[in-house]
């Protein structure tokens, strides 16, 4: 846990860790940030679990992946950053759209786009970096 007020962080090594660790981490963040509305919590949990799932599924390249999630709960917005040491990702998050209704995959990034105000992907040195920002909605 970061000593900064509103700052929270989680390190993951997958495997053996999986998105269950992200859910549990977020439960501790919500306990520490009781003013965050239920709507904001639902949106952020969906966004961060979708991003972590993508990293674990696609970024690992069969060798496992190490990632770090940082969450900064500010008075007006919540910012999160997910970094991983996986292979580079060919993706334009701004272009993410929902697939055909009968598709069984490919909805993750489109859903993230819908519940955050800003979503970015960058390749920095040998790491992938996903950043999201969501303006806080009062309860």
């Amino acid at each position, binding site marked *: 846990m970061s000593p900064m007020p509103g700052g929270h962080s989680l390190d993951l090594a997958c495997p053996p860790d999986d998105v269950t660790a992200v859910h549990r981490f977020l439960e501790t963040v919500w306990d520490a940030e009781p003013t965050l509305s239920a709507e904001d919590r*639902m949106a952020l949990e969906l966004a961060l679990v979708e991003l972590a*799932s993508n990293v674990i599924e696609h970024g690992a390249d069969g060798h496992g992946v190490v990632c770090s999630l940082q969450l900064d709960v500010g008075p007006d917005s919540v910012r999160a950053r997910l970094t991983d040491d996986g292979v580079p990702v060919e993706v334009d998050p701004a272009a993410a759209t929902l697939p055909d209704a*009968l598709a*069984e995959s490919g909805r993750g990034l489109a859903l993230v786009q819908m519940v955050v105000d800003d979503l970015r992907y960058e390749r920095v040195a040998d790491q992938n970096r996903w950043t999201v920002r969501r303006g806080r909605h009062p309860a």
Partner: protein
Amino acid sequence: MDIVVHEAAEDTAVLECSGRLNMVSAGAFRETVAKVVDGGRARLVVELSGVDFMDSSGLGALVGCLKTARQAGGDLRIAAPSEQVQMVLKLSNIDKILRTYPDGDAAVSTWG
């Protein structure tokens, strides 16, 4: 995630789910549905009131299971989605292909 299978009729099963339907549990959910359909029950009601989190992996599993049920001559209905599940269903426009019922009994009893 926990799944309890209720054999509601000769061709109908209600799957009472609780926990999280995500990439960790989606595979087990698909396997459970495949077994139920193989066992002769292709009309499926997936009761989701106890599912407090579902994501795109869970949605994909529901769509896959809908296809499994239809290929066997049945269908798949959703009952009693929690607030979080309702949000994801709405955002994904999945209500076009997956009908939602207020509870398991309503989903079963309206099957003609």
